[in-house]
């Protein structure tokens, strides 16, 4: 799920205002956009690439690896299933407020066809220096720089802030994985963490969570098993219980989804959880120095 220069990207909804704006941004950054979808404008060109009637048609005419959806909620199910049935490896679903039954249909289709859905309600994925898919400010050098820290975030805005803090502290990113703020997302915190643990370009991980659900608790199982340092910030400590805090997934009911539960699980697994995002770089420096010392000692012992 780490986007590479070689990944061919299809933009569903390419001709809309946002689709156009972000396609241009992706192209300028170096992402290989190979086509777009709009059934009403099939056969034309837009942003220098051909427009197809469907994702299936795009797959039959040159193919693509990753689809990104600039599609309104009511049309999202059909668009996602089109891309899935076409054989997309990854579908990046930016759309917020898709009816949950439609989302479950998308996930069922994805499971059958072996497609990975990122989102819904994600801001996308960025690999600094290679490409990005979605609506993240990859092109802002104060926010994104090539480096060795992998970042996972449910939120685009908070993910942007964390990346900004990392760059300010001298850390570039190996990958930014925006997984989305919805309650039922295709790629969980744990899935994203597994990908970063496996990625040879990633030395350390910044895990940005928020209240609601149990994804951070589930990811903690992997934190306990990896040698890569994990730092974390969890948003929503000051949020009142029982209210949806903007994201449909960010709600605490009883003990479930609480800040204390998430922080406790991550800390027990060996992650360092900071109180404010500005403290992330220092926490990372300390953990990475410790890890370097450990591996140095290991080399001496060998």
């Amino acid at each position, binding site marked *: 799920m780490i986007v590479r220069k070689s990944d061919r990207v299809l933009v569903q909804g390419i001709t809309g205002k946002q689709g156009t704006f972000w396609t241009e941004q992706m192209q300028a950054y170096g992402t290989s956009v190979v086509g777009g979808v709009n059934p009403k404008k099939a056969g034309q060109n837009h942003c220098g690439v051909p427009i197809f009637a469907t994702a299936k048609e795009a797959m039959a005419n040159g193919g693509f690896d990753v689809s990104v959806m600039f599609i309104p909620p*009511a049309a999202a199910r059909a668009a996602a299933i089109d891309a899935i049935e076409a054989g997309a490896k990854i579908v990046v679903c930016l759309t917020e407020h898709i009816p*949950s039954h439609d989302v*479950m249909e998308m996930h069922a289709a994805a499971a059958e066809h072996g497609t990975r859905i990122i989102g819904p309600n994600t801001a996308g994925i960025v690999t600094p220096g290679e490409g990005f898919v979605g609506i993240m400010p990859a092109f802002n050098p104060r926010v994104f720089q090539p480096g060795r820290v992998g970042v996972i975030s449910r939120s685009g805005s908070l993910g*942007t802030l964390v990346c900004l803090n990392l760059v300010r502290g001298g850390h570039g990113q190996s990958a930014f994985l925006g997984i989305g703020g919805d309650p039922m997302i295709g790629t969980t915190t744990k899935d994203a963490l597994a990908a970063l643990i496996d990625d040879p370009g990633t030395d350390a991980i910044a895990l940005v969570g928020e209240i609601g659900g149990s994804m951070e608790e589930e990811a903690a199982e992997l934190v306990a098993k990896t040698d890569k340092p994990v730092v974390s910030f969890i948003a929503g400590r000051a949020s*009142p219980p029982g209210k949806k805090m903007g994201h449909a997934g960010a709600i605490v009911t009883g003990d479930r989804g609480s800040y204390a539960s998430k922080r406790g699980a991550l800390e027990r697994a060996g992650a360092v959880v900071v109180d404010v*995002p*500005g403290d992330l770089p220092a926490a990372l420096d300390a953990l990475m120095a410790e890890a370097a010392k450990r591996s140095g000692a290991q080399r001496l012992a060998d």
Partner: protein
Amino acid sequence: MNFEEHAGKSVLSRAGVSVPQGRLCASAQEAEAAARAIGPVVVKAQVPTGKRGKSGGVKLAATPEAAAASAQAILGMEIGGFPVARVLVEEQAAIAREFYAAVLNDPASRSPLVLFSTEGGMDIEEVAATRPESLRRMAVDIRKGFGPADARRLLLGLDLGEAAVPVAAMLVDLYRVYRQHDAELLEINPLALLADGRVVPLDCKLTVDDAALYRQTDIAGLGAKEPLSALEERGRALDLKYIELEGNVGVLANGAGLTMTTMDVVSHAGGRPSNFLEIGGEAYTKGTEALDLVLSNPGVKSLVVNFCGAFARTDVMAGGVIQAWKTLNPTIPVFFSIHGTGEDEAVRMVREELGIEPYDRMEDAISAAVEAAR
């Protein structure tokens, strides 16, 4: 959107699921008349929350006079923060056994989940902890649905006797209603086996997906109104996510994650936020309306404007805030931190048009705002 018991039962009834005979009443007199028509009744507070029984919101009444007295006692109670304005006066059922049944969205399997237990009337968490052998669950492929064969498979091995057939039929019905109405949760607890062999829902908890209300217009009017403050109502009308809180540091940020974080840092710096308000996503052009809303809270003593734009362009958001600031001309101090898409232009505008220097670190902007609110 949550549905009170009577509204959930209306939805079931319209879909062809038989429910006990009952009437919604707003006064003791109405309750008395209802009981006269129905016979022995149970009088139940109608609020969109659980724990009604434990709060004294459910009473049996054998006579019309007793029904009037019960209604009198329950109307005007407050349960879980909701004042009780109406009671459901419902026929008393001759209950042989009580079960539990539910269909819900399951984030773990990303699919509908059908739940059934032979232990009814308890919290399902409690059943799962104390009587796990009584609980059955089945994740459903939403594209295939849940039919009679699935229901029989789910119930296999449970001691249901003659009730197995009507229970299976009820589960299929509940799944159909859940699916037809974009429910996030349809929970029947208890689901009763009556002495005459019928299986009927005695209670009903229904939550319909807010994102699907546009295609659930036939039942949306039956849903409970959320208890919103006047400012929250205003936010709702503007399609802005605004939650009123009790502090004095106003918060205006983009994106749910960043807005929650801004509140967290206010709290970490020793202050208390006066609101949650995010103008990310499609709302990023509503800076003017948003600022007006934050400043309308009389508790606000200082304001943090914290933008970290990805999709949301900070120059557009800052432009809206600046415009509103000039119009409203507020006397409280404001502290900015702006980064991400459009930040150079946004910072320049704030500096030149308001004469305010944005902070580089949001933590510094927030500390200054908390200090100013003291």
